[in-house]
């Protein structure tokens, strides 16, 4: 039987062997914890605590700042030290609540209380998930409660659990499936209970046979959940690619998974949903992988949100002896992760790893001219022509870029990875996409303004008309 997958994609060095056998262990420490108000997609949250306040672990310290936005929960007990912009993994300063831990990790009342979710109705479940501050913690950070409220719940045919973990070096989802697989299955069942027509699929790449076997065992008596073995290929875990691999359906950038009758959630998100709904525990901790050829000890650690990456790396063992500084530090994996220039930044909800590499393959491989080899075309999972898109990008030709479907690019990095001329394709697409999006926004605003003016003018004309009538 041929395994399910999508078309295109590449096989970068996986590096899973470095950390896949390291069991998850908890890591807590004293000191400052930093909670940025913006942790993923959506409007920033609004702080609801003041400097000097004493907070407990599990306490809401900031409230969702809009519909697409999520609460922020303190992961420690202690005192609010300051509220100010702090540097984040993205390299920008974001308004953050800083809590100095008292080292006690006291929680608010009721945390851990078991709850029978089967007698909860849909609104209650979504409410709990919203209060728990859960976002897609697989990477994108989209607020989960929004995802769970599609326009037409009856049209959802597949609820897909993303266990593909296609990003190299990352093993946190793998460990979670092995060690807390029950939570994932229960979390999936909770979600499926809200969509009567939905069938559950757990998609796992076949480079994780143990996880596949374990999840299959757990689902042996779940007739409505299928564990799907996927052919290992990057970027299998991309939402559009995963949907395609699991169901054969296609969506483009202007569609939502729900338009294809699907909802996708990462396995770690599902475990968090279980914690929140069945164990009354909001999102406070997260498993991340510590890996790379420069670290002394690789690990999968369950850390508290707000922990500093630097601290985590130090606690786990730091760099290998003889290495003063790594060639490159990443938050996340090598294909889509962010390069860090400052390690003292906090773990946020979508964080997945810290990697340290001896060599920086990017700066060691200078860019040369495109030889039109077509490799980028072969690997692009969105069926684009990166070589031509870059030509448009080099000329800042937004129109041409859009015409080449540049806005469909998912920034997966496959083209840059494969390019023999080492062209920074993905990087230029990110910039172009931002420019195009900004331009679209301006255009939309202009249109709105014009419409308003036209409406105002029409109203004025009408008024004048009426006045005339009155005068008669």
């Amino acid at each position, binding site marked *: 039987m041929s395994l399910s997958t999508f078309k295109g994609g590449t096989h970068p060095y996986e590096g899973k062997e470095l950390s896949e056998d390291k069991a998850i262990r908890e890591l807590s420490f004293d000191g400052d914890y930093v909670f940025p108000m913006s942790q993923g997609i959506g409007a920033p949250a609004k702080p609801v605590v003041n400097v000097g306040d004493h907070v407990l672990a599990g306490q809401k310290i900031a409230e969702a700042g809009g519909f697409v936005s999520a609460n922020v929960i303190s992961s420690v007990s202690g005192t609010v030290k300051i509220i100010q912009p702090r540097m984040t993994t993205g390299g920008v300063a974001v308004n953050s609540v800083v809590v100095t831990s008292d080292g006690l990790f006291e929680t608010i009342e009721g945390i851990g209380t078991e709850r029978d979710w089967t007698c909860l109705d849909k609104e209650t479940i979504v409410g709990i998930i919203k209060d728990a501050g859960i976002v897609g913690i697989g990477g994108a950070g989209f607020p989960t409660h929004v995802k769970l409220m599609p326009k037409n719940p009856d049209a959802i045919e597949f609820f897909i659990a993303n266990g593909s973990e296609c990003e190299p070096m990352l093993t946190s989802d793998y460990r979670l499936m092995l060690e807390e697989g029950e939570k994932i299955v229960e979390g999936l069942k909770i979600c499926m209970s809200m969509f009567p027509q939905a069938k559950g699929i757990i998609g796992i790449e076949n480079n994780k046979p143990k996880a596949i076997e374990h999840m299959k065992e757990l689902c042996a008596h779940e007739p409505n959940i299928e564990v799907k073995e996927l052919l290992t290929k990057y970027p299998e875990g991309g939402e559009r690619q995963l949907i395609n691999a699991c169901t054969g359906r296609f969506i483009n950038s202007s569609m939502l998974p729900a338009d294809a009758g699907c909802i996708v959630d990462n396995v770690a998100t599902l475990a968090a949903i279980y914690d929140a709904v069945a164990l009354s525990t909001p999102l406070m901790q997260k498993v991340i992988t510590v890996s790379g050829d420069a670290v002394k000890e690789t690990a999968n650690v369950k850390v508290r949100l707000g922990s500093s990456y630097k601290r985590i790396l130090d606690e786990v063992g730091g760099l290998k002896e003889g290495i003063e500084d790594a060639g490159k530090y990443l938050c996340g994996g090598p294909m889509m992760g962010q390069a860090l220039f400052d390690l003292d930044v906090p773990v946020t909800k979508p964080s997945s790893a810290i990697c340290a*590499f001896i060599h920086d*393959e990017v700066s060691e491989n200078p860019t040369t*001219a495109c030889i*039109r080899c077509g490799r980028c075309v072969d690997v692009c999972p969105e*069926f684009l022509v990166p070589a031509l898109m870059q030509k448009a990008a080099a000329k800042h030709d937004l129109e041409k870029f859009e015409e080449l479907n540049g806005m469909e690019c998912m920034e997966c990095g496959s083209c840059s990875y494969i390019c023999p001329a080492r062209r920074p394709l993905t990087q230029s697409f990110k910039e172009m996409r931002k420019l195009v999006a900004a331009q679209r926004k301006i255009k939309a605003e202009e249109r709105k303004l014009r419409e308003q003016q036209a409406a105002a003018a029409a109203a004025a004309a009408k008024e004048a008309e009426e006045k005339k009538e009155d005068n008669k």
Partner: protein
Amino acid sequence: MANLRNVSSSPHFRNKTDTKSLMLDVILAMIPATAFSVYHFGISALLIIVLTVLSCVASEYIWEKLMHKPITVMDLSAVVTGMILALNMPPEIPVWIPMLGGVFAIIVVKQLYGGIGQNFMNPALAARCFLLISFAGLMNNFSSAKIGFDALTGATPLAMARTGDITSYSLFQLFLGNIPGTLGEVSSFALIIGGIYLIVCKVISPRIPLTYLATYAVFAFIFGQHRGTYIVYEILSGGILFGAFFMATDYVTSPITVKGQYVYGILLGLLTGIFRCFGASPEGVSYAIILSNLFVPLIEKYTMPKAFGKEGK
């Protein structure tokens, strides 16, 4: 936080294959054909090949030096151009002719258009055509002192097939390469080994060569003598294998879209068929490729892939 760290946009991994390693693979793939030509035509063949390569590399180096451009000879693409050009030469050619061709290929066809990746015609082939026009007599002399092909018996199998004679060389002779012809095109066996190497190592995709050969075979079947051996004869002679594996697949001058590569292969097959059937020039393959090169932008324009999830829109 004073020390500067390497930061860059994702992805942070790079595949091992780079331009240089790809070019090296192409060179390796041409070694069997090169070795056979030296064995078959004698040491003078080696001299032609080495000097043509040197001429290409030197032209590139000197030009870039003079123009104050970064020196790119280390990417080995000039070596590939030199080898392809040399392997397209008849055995008794005075060596200064391909050397002149090398200068033309690199400076006029490649560098004047902006260097690697920018030229729209295959440099080696454009140079071959330039030499054919300028030195028709010398370029069409397929006699060879070493193996006793004189000017009379030195007609290439293809030229003979044109006169209806396909019996003077056996298919086996054609396959091994025991025939007159240009340095690199004679041994089908050596070329197929090289072609398989390129495909297995994923240096080229089989899309262009196979569509090309298949289209041409069909063409030969329809317009030729409706005999199985005749088609094999056509495929094994006249440098079509060399063209299909090594020249039509030149990255720079072939389409980058997948569908475009099929279209390109079909176009090549048809043009080669037309040139061979209606004109008796042994360079039908070269002309077909050069001409198809000019259609590449057009082919690409009409074969853009549909973006993921945008079918039917």
